């Protein structure tokens, strides 16, 4: 009987424990993990609690220190690197400032480590920056060993929400706890030697973390509605009117949460994923649109890149007063940016939903270093966002699909790049805060998305999908670098196309990812010369010098020439579509390397028009106007919009005059 009872209790315990496990087989190495018990004080705007954290040394050498991000200290003063770079200030009153403070830290044996802490500034040496903390260990962590820390900490949230913070009773709690940097071993992500990769918090940068397991207990006053990146395990309200929520999250790179009494909730399901949407009252009309968008994204990514493994996903549309938290991503929790009564034809808020969800792939699963390679998350994700938007909302209509006017997401990305005055100021290789002349967003989002579309245009949709599938299969839940992506591209393109595009695709990346040149192909001219039969003076034996003409050959033979020029520095293979008067069409290929290329045709037909890149595959081309030319310009098409514009002006000016 006793044996039976013990067996039964063990079984019950196993079942209870396994009910909390999300993945029986870990998706990542889980080199770090956090167990937290924290409480929100809505009056003091603080989150206080304790944390058990571990870090595994997977290198071959002993590690003498631990480096941790203390992101909230960016809001500690206007001298922090974050505010020095943005030339701003956390605010005017004490409540506006944000900070994180370790109240106590001990190791597994109970040894007090408080005296071993020091703030460092590995990026800029700023003595006033306190966003990276080094713990000089009394004894190094041996290879393969796990270091455990027990930390009591207080996080004061900043008043002006910049991804994280509060407004009144709205809280978005992100980048909020002491968090391990990434210990990179030699060769990993281009590292020349083993060491911590733990950057300061910059104005223009995001993050880099190990995939971890989070067990987080959050305590808030009972009226608060809470959302987080974890799966809710248990929820109860204690005698003091405090809501206690236990969350568990596995294999995610960050844990964030939000609390606000005003949230409305909506739940939905997509295959295995339980989707929870938190939004402010008054935006009920937008719920279906956001839910549809996130399901589109789940479907498209699953088909084209790889599965979304988590069974839970929460996303948040912050209220107006918390809009600073909008448009941010924490893998299984993300924020969108909505508004009430947005017209049906405008898909900007769906675009944000798709984009932020996409980060679950590009840096969530494929955990690139956002500090150092921002294009690998923002650029790749913008590329996929535009594909999804244009796929589901109509080709060319991903952003606006009005009855009379429209715009595609792909073109919106392209416009951001091709019309930027600083588009040539840098390539895509600088670290995020080093992009010059305010080019960070344009180069890491729009340019990267545009050259990825161009890559798709060259190698084809099927091939680029295969590239990303392989990239996912080989690098999901690890830390890929630019070289890893290039290597996979080269491998897949060679497998699928042999040497059609050369030995590999390095020539492409050298010009786009690592190049600053622009791409511009021009159709410089079309000429149709009549080939006349012989007519000239000939000396004859009998009649002397006489005018002779060959009447046997017809006068209707033409030599047509289509002249192409490469104006930009970037050299890409392009297609040419030539249309003859008879209706015949010819497609030509040009490697695009020379400064010019002439295509000649001789026959009875004449060239009527020609277009370089007729399907607009080379999205990097900065000027589409000069891509085509016709010998018979359609004046009606040109005059039509002008006439309508003029009529609009006529009526508009009369209406506003009284």
């Amino acid at each position, binding site marked *: 009987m006793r044996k039976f009872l013990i067996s039964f209790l063990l079984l019950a315990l196993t079942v209870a424990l396994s009910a909390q496990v999300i993945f029986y087989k870990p998706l990542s190495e889980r080199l770090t993990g956090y167990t937290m018990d924290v409480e929100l004080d809505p009056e003091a705007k603080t989150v206080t609690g304790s944390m058990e954290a571990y870090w595994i040394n997977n290198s071959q050498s002993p590690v003498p220190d631990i480096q941790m991000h203390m992101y909230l200290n960016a809001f500690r003063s206007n001298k922090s690197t974050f505010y020095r770079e943005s030339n701003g200030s956390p605010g005017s009153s004490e409540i506006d400032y944000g900070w994180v403070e370790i109240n106590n830290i001990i190791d597994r044996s109970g040894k007090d480590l408080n005296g071993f802490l020091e703030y460092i500034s590995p990026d800029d040496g700023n003595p006033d920056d306190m966003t990276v903390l080094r713990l000089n260990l009394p004894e190094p962590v041996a290879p393969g060993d796990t270091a455990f820390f027990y930390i009591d900490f207080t996080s004061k949230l900043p008043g002006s929400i910049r991804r994280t913070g509060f407004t009144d009773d709205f809280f978005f709690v992100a980048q909020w706890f002491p968090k391990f940097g990434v210990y990179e071993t030699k060769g990993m992500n281009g590292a020349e030697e083993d060491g911590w990769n733990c950057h300061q918090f910059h104005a223009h940068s995001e993050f880099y973390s190990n995939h971890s397991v989070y067990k987080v207990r959050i305590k808030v006053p009972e009226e608060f509605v809470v959302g987080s990146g974890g799966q809710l395990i248990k929820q109860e309200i204690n005698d003091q009117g405090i809501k206690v929520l236990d969350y568990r999250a596995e294999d995610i790179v960050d844990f964030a949460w939000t609390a606000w009494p005003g949230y409305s909730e909506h739940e939905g399901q997509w295959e295995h994923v339980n989707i929870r949407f938190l939004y402010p009252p008054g935006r009920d009309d937008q719920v279906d649109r956001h839910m549809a968008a996130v399901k589109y994204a789940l479907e498209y990514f699953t088909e084209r890149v790889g599965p979304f493994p988590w069974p839970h996903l929460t996303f948040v549309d912050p209220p107006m007063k918390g809009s600073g938290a909008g448009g941010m991503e924490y893998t299984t929790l993300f924020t969108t940016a909505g508004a009430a009564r947005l017209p049906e034809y405008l898909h900007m808020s769906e675009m944000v939903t798709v984009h932020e969800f996409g980060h679950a792939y590009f840096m969530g699963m494929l955990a690139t270093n956002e500090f150092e390679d921002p294009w690998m998350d923002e650029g790749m994700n913008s590329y996929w966002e535009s594909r999804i938007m244009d796929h589901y909302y109509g080709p060319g209509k991903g952003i606006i699909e009005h009855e009379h006017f429209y715009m595609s997401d792909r073109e919106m990305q392209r416009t951001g790049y091709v019309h930027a005055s600083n588009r040539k100021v840098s390539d895509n290789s600088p670290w995020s805060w080093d992009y010059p002349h305010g080019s960070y967003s344009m180069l890491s989002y729009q340019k990267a998305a545009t050259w990825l579309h161009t890559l798709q245009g060259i190698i084809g949709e099927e091939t680029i999908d295969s590239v990303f599938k392989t990239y996912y299969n080989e690098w999901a839940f690890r830390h890929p670098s630019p070289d890893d992506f290039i290597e996979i591209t080269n491998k897949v393109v060679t497998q699928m196309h042999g040497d059609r595009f050369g030995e590999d695709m390095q020539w492409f990346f050298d010009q786009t990812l690592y190049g600053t040149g622009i791409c511009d192909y021009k159709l410089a001219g079309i000429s149709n010369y009549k080939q006349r039969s012989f007519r000239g003076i000939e000396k004859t034996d009998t009649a002397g010098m006489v005018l002779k003409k060959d009447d046997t050959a017809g006068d209707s033979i033409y030599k047509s020439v289509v002249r192409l020029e490469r104006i930009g520095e970037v050299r890409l293979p392009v297609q040419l579509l030539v249309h003859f008067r008879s209706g015949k069409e010819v497609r030509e290929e040009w490697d695009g390397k020379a400064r010019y290329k002439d295509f000649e045709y001789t026959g009875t037909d004449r060239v009527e028009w020609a277009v370089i890149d007729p399907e607009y595959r080379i999205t990097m081309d900065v*000027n589409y106007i000069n891509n085509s030319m016709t010998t018979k310009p359609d004046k009606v098409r040109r005059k039509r919009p002008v006439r309508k514009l003029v009529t609009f002006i006529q009526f508009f000016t009369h209406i506003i005059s*009284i």
Partner: protein
Amino acid sequence: MKFFKAFTSGAIRALRSIKAILLFWLMTFAVLAVFTYPLKSFINEAMGNSMITNLLDEGFNLTLFTDLGQAFSPMMSYITSGFLILLLLYFFLYNFLNGGLFDSLKTNKLSYKPGDFFRSSARLFLSYLVVMVLVILMILLAMVLVVGVPVLIQRAGGSVTEEQTWKLVSVLRIVALLVLPVFLLVADYSRTWLAANDYRKVFKSIGYGFKATFKTFLSSYFFMLIMIIVQGLFVMLVAKVLASYTPESGGGLFLLFLLSQFLFIVKLFLRAVRYGGVTALYRL
């Protein structure tokens, strides 16, 4: 009774002022042409013999503007700065021509001469300009008071949802629409008075405008409200017609031109009915 009289008399006066309406149209059209022709040349030069306009086949593709590449920025700055200059020009021009139109409506004779039209326009220009500026300022102030202030008060009051703000704004928009006829009546009565009396006494005319508006409030107000609604519906109809008509040939393009100008003349006629109706009410 006055209410119906305003419509019938307004329409008759407008019909008798057809010459003034056509002169009005001709002048505005001439100014528009000054703006249009450089725009056409600019587009022709920017596009050359490109086939990029094919992108307009399925509607107004905003992508086209992005595809204008290097020409995009100067073209947009031309359109926007040209548009602002045109707005300013029209502001003065409409004000100028309104003088002639009011005088023609007051005279109420088919034989009204173009010389009289321009003479009155010149005579009344400055006074009308002051009336127009003052009434526009009054309208803006009223809109701020009617819409902006309540919204600010509501939002300052604490936790207000967007839905509540939307509801308030929707109600206030209707209130604003109901307030608007009052100011238009003040402007029209003032201008009628100036056309009939001493054109230099601007502030007296505005005082008269308010007095006349409230003296015949019900008939004046509902006349103006209905005229605003009719003109609004007409503009919506024009927008629908012009947006859905896509000419494919030179002839079709010419038809578009004729249609748009005809509709604009109808729009001017409706405005003349409004002015004529107020003139009739002034005379009653």
